[in-house]
């Protein structure tokens, strides 16, 4: 399998009254179509790593290559385009727009790039709702939905543009075990059905166990990298 993400000698230092060195010489590759978990204690640097992979943050040193393209020289607009087309995000908090319905929220990444929706994209949204088991709520305002339904809507939103990579930061952090299981099942299904590369940051051992590879971060360094 080819690498879809490559990190070379990545360091991250937060400047301040006292500089904080968060990541130390990270060298890591992610295969396309793989399902990966990043685990570690709070403050270990795993979320920072995820933000750098997701192009939301920049490394202080080092190089990031996504889908064969070095992103270090890209300007803000190019990075925004890359995120819109290539990367889907799921966060611990869903960050759905409360003013919109579930369907409207899901279509937003598509509408960032396109002026209006097409029949194909509505069908794609319906397919995602069906797969995630939330078809009943697709026309509900997100404020009327449960936490699990909101998080599944956020997953559908992350997938609407067929991204090659899905980055999830503690996606089940706020959810009960049953909903967590459902979401993990969905991730697996999406990975197999659409060939999406998953990188999931989690505290939850069970969630990590359901992936192909577990990378453990400790004090800003890769402590373990286990391929199952």
């Amino acid at each position, binding site marked *: 399998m080819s690498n879809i993400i490559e990190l070379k000698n990545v360091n991250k230092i937060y400047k301040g009254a006292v500089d904080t060195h968060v990541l130390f010489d990270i060298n890591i590759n992610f295969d396309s179509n793989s399902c990966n978990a990043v685990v570690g204690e709070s403050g270990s640097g795993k*979320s920072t790593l995820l*933000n750098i992979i*997701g192009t*939301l*943050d920049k490394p202080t040193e080092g190089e990031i290559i996504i889908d064969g393209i070095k992103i270090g020289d890209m300007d*803000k*607009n190019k990075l*925004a*385009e*890359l*995120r*819109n*087309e290539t990367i889907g*995000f799921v*966060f*611990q*908090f869903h*960050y759905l*727009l*409360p*003013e*919109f319905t579930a369907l409207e929220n899901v279509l*937003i*990444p598509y*509408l*960032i*790039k396109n*002026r*209006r929706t097409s029949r194909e994209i509505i069908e794609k949204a319906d397919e995602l709702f069906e797969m995630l088991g939330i078809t009943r709520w697709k026309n509900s305002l997100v404020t009327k939905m449960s936490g699990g339904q909101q998080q599944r809507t956020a997953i559908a*939103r992350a997938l609407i543009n067929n991204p090659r990579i899905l980055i999830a*930061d503690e996606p089940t952090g706020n959810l009960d075990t049953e909903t967590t299981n459902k979401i993990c099942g969905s991730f697996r299904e999406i990975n197999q059905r659409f060939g999406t590369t998953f990188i999931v940051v989690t505290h939850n051992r069970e969630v990590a166990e359901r992936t192909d590879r577990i990378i453990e971060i400790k004090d800003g360094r890769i402590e373990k990298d286990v391929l199952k």
Partner: protein
Amino acid sequence: MLSLKIAIRFLKTGGAQNLLIIVGIAIAISIQIFVGLLINSLQKTLVDRTIGNSPQITILSSTDINTIRDWDIIVRDLEEVDQIRATAVSATANAFIQDGSRNLPIIVRGFNFDDFDSIYNIRDSLYEGKPYKSVREVLIGKNLREELEVDIGDRIFVKTPEGKETYFIISGFYDLGVASINESWILANLDTTQRIFYFGNRITSIEVTVKDIFAADNTAYEIEKLLDNNDIKVNNWKEQNEELLSGLEGQRMSSLVIQIVIIASVVIAISSVLAITVLQKSKEIGILKAMGIKDLAASSIFIYEGFLLGLLGATLGVILGLGLLYGFDASTTSADGVAIVDLYIEYDFIITSWFIGVAASTIAGILPARKSLRLNPVDIIREG
């Protein structure tokens, strides 16, 4: 168009906060329209009532004999001037009325009645009697009538400065609303004054009204150039009423200052409320940026919000402002039911005010838009 869609949705769910902004803009624009149109109407009413029913341009002789020869050629030339509404030729002279032992100074003004009417609207001011026709017939003003205690058909005896004595027969009484005219002007035929005062075929002035009162100085200059005659001079009301004009200008400037202050306060108010909206919506903006919305599109949400608030507020303001103006007009009438101020609804001014409201509100969106540019999705996500 996602930015516009999000802006509309933000506004719809904004509730009382947005309603207050819209009402704020509406009040500001309504005051702008009310004050602006009222001041303009007041000025026009003032000018119309003082200058409107009198000549705005007067052509006089600049020679020592104070009379104009070949005036019919001048009148024909004036027909070429597009801005002229009416002209009236006059032969005017001072005289005295002999009333018992009293000698009252008067001005005998000779006009063709219809020409005089076209400038002074005398038909409407003729409250008793009929226009003069024969050589002896004259009209006298309300105040002079009260002074002399005379009636229609009575004779009044007049003495010219040269000592010639004659009499007139009163055919009617007028009230031009100006006491100094009502007590001194005796209106007669042009022929009558030309004969009594030995003017021959000469006249003393040509009085002119123009279509645009405030452009009277330009029209006067045009007439001067057209006639190109050193024996005459062309006066206009503006150069003779500089104090009135500076008063009107002062009024206009103070109204402008009020309007600018109102608009400035609206811009500041909208801007600060929208800046709070940026804070309220920072999570949404952050996640939109994470999903790939570009900075310009994200910040344009707040420009659109400003624009839409301005659109609604300014439209409501126009309706409210006109309502206030008509309400004011209906509630401020004189004892005889006539409006104190004649309303002049200037559509250009209303459209400009509406446009200013929309533009100011849109500009007010720039500050929060700039603020949103600085929102970094990582900060939002890290803060949770």
